[in-house]
C-alpha cells in the first residue's frame, strides 16, 4: 500500500448559516506523509479533514487533488479513502469480522479474497479472538482497533483519522497512539490526523499544521513548531511558554526581576527601534525547561518560589520574578524548594524567542 500526494488549493468553507469555518487554505501533503491538523475546537481542523474526505465540498474556487486527479467533485464513496471516527462509527448490526469485510463487500470482492483480507487485518491489529464478537461487546480501545482495520482493509489511497483517541482514557490513548504510529509507518500511507492533543500531534506527525480561527497558523516538523513557533498563538498552544515584557536595550530585556538576553535576530530590530524610542517595550518568550538555576553571581534575574511540585524526574516551580505573570520553571536540581525561597535564574540566549503577536 503506498500513498499518493494530496493538495488543497484555496479551500475555504462557509456554512449555510454564513459562518466561515475555513479561510482559503493551501496545503500540500507528500505521498506517504502523516500530517497532523492540530488546534482548539472550532479552528477548522475537522472541516479541513472533511473536505479532504469528500464529506464537505469546499466553497467555489477551492480544489482538492489526489495525486494528479482533481477529486473536488468526486463524492466520498468514490474517493477511496479510509476514515476513522472519534465515535468509531462501527456498524452495530455486524460482527467485528463483518465490519472489516463491509468495505470489501460493497466493492464486490470475491468471498474467498474477502475472508483472506479480513484474516490479514485481524492479525495486523491483533484482534483475531474478537472476530465473531458483536460491537457492543467490545471496549473502547478494541472498537478503535476494529475501526482502523475496517478503514485499512480496502487498501485506501488516503487514511483520515478524526480525533480517533479522544474518546479513550489516558492510558489506553498512549498504547493505541503507539499502535497507530507503528501502523502508519509500516503502511507508508498518506494520512491526515486531526487532534486537539499536542502530545499526540508531536508523537505521530511527520509535520504538524497548527490551526487557529480557520487558518493554518504554522506548518512544520514537530521540532520547528516547538522550537521556532511562528507566533504567540502557536507558542502558547504547544507546550508551556513563559512570557516576559520589558524594555529592550543593549541586547538585553530589562524587567522588574532583572534581565533576559535578547535573541540574536531580534537584537538588530529592537536596537533600531530603541534608537527612536528609548523605552521600547518588547515581549519575549521561553520554555520552562530553558530556565536554569545558577549562582547569584551568574544570575540574569532572581525569583521567589510561589509553589513547587516535585515530580520525580524534575521539579516544577512557579516563580514570581516581578513580571506580570508568574514564570514556570522545570528544573532538575536534587533539592527541595519551599515557598518563599529565592532562586537565581538564567536563560540561554538562543532559547529566548521574540514573537509577533498571534494573528486573529
Amino acid at each position, binding site marked *: 500500500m503506498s500513498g499518493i500526494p494530496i493538495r488543497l488549493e484555496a479551500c475555504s468553507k462557509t456554512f449555510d448559516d454564513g459562518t466561515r469555518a475555513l479561510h482559503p487554505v493551501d496545503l500540500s501533503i507528500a505521498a506517504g506523509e502523516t500530517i497532523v491538523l492540530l488546534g482548539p475546537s472550532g479552528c477548522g481542523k475537522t472541516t479541513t479533514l472533511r473536505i479532504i474526505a469528500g464529506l464537505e465540498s469546499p466553497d467555489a474556487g477551492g480544489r482538492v487533488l489526489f495525486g494528479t486527479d482533481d477529486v473536488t467533485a468526486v463524492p466520498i464513496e468514490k474517493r477511496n479513502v479510509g476514515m476513522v471516527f472519534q465515535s468509531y*462509527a462501527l456498524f452495530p448490526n455486524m460482527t467485528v469480522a463483518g465490519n472489516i469485510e463491509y468495505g470489501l463487500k460493497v466493492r464486490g470482492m470475491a468471498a474467498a479474497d474477502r475472508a483472506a483480507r479480513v484474516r490479514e487485518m485481524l492479525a495486523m491489529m491483533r484482534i483475531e479472538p474478537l472476530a465473531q464478537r458483536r460491537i457492543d461487546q467490545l471496549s473502547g480501545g478494541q472498537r478503535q482497533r476494529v475501526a482502523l482495520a475496517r478503514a485499512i482493509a480496502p487498501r485506501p489511497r488516503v487514511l483520515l483519522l478524526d480525533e480517533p483517541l479522544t474518546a479513550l482514557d489516558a492510558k489506553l490513548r498512549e498504547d493505541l497512539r503507539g499502535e497507530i504510529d507503528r501502523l502508519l509507518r509500516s503502511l507508508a500511507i498518506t494520512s491526515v490526523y486531526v487532534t486537539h492533543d499536542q502530545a499526540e500531534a508531536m508523537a505521530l506527525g511527520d509535520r504538524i499544521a497548527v490551526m487557529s480561527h480557520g487558518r493554518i497558523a504554522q506548518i512544520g516538523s514537530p521540532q520547528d513548531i516547538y522550537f521556532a513557533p511562528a507566533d504567540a498563538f502557536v507558542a502558547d498552544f504547544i507546550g508551556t511558554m513563559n512570557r516576559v515584557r520589558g524594555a529592550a536595550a543593549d541586547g538585553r530585556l530589562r524587567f522588574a526581576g532583572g534581565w533576559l538576553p535578547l535573541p540574536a535576530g531580534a537584537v538588530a530590530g529592537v536596537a533600531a527601534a530603541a534608537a527612536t524610542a528609548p523605552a521600547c517595550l518588547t515581549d519575549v518568550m521561553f520554555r520552562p525547561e530553558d530556565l536554569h538555576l545558577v549562582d547569584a553571581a551568574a544570575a540574569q534575574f532572581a525569583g521567589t518560589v510561589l509553589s513547587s511540585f516535585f515530580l520525580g524526574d524534575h521539579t516544577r516551580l512557579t516563580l514570581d520574578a516581578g513580571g506580570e505573570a508568574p514564570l514556570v520553571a522545570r528544573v532538575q536540581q536534587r533539592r527541595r524548594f519551599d515557598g518563599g525561597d529565592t532562586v537565581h535564574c538564567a536563560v540561554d540566549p538562543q532559547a529566548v524567542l521574540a514573537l509577533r503577536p498571534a494573528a486573529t
Partner: protein
Amino acid sequence: MSKMKRRAPLFWLLLAFTLAVCAFLIVPVAMSMLAGVTQNYFTGWRGGLTLDWVIKVWTDYRHTVFLSIKIALACLVCTLLLGVPAAYVLARRSNAFTRAIEELLVMPVAIPGLATALALIVTFGGFGDLRRSWLFILIGHVLFTLPFMVRSVLAVLASIDLRTLEEGARSLGASFTQRFFGIVLPNCRSGIVAGSLMVVTLSLGEFNMTLLLHTPLTPTLPVGLADAYASLRIEVGSAYTLIFFVIIIPLLVALQWASRPRDPGAAK
C-alpha cells in the same frame, strides 16, 4: 431475615394492591371469555360448557375475521413502505419543517376516528367504486396507524448516530442503496418490528373509524363484534370476543417481546 420481616407489611400491602389492579383488568376479560363458552350465560359455567357459540360465530362471521386480517396486513405493507422512508428522512433532516411534520403526525391519533372517517367520506366518498371497496377502510387505517410506525422507527433512529454510521459506510465506498439496506434498515430493525406489531394490532381492533367507513359488504371483525353484541345473545358476542383474543393476544405478546431492550448495559 430480620430485614425481610421488617419490610414485610409494606410488601404484602403492595402485593395486594398490585393483585387487585390486575384482577380489575383481567376479571372482566376472563368473564367475557368464559361467557362465550357457557351453555347459558344466566346459569353460568355450572350450567355446562360448550363450543357451540364459538362454532356459530365462526360460521356466521368468519368473513369478518378474514377481512380484518387482510386489511391489517395490507395496512402493514402500506405503513412500511410509507413510514420507514419517512422516518429516515425526518431523522436525517432535522429542521423546523421536519419537526412540524413530526408534530402533525399525531393529528390522526388526536382527532376522533369518527371525524376522520367523515372527512374521508366527504373527500373520497364519490370517488368511483371506492366507497364500496375494502380499500376505503384500508385508507382510514393507514392514516390512523402510520404515525405509530413513523414514531417507532424514528425513536430507534434517533438513538443511534445515524449520520456518522452512514459517513462510515460512505467512506468504505457504499452507495445509497447499499447503505440504506445494509446499514440503516438492519439498525432500526427493532423499531420496524415494534411498529409493525403496533400497526397490525391497531388495525385489527380499530372500530371508531371503521364503523363509518364499512359497508354491509365489508364488515370487519370489531364491526361484526358490535353487531353480534347488539343483535344476538350475549354468549354469541362473548364467543366472538374469545376469537378476537385468540388472534390478538399472541400479537400483543410478540409486541412486548420485540420491543424489549436488547442489551441493557451496552447502550454506551
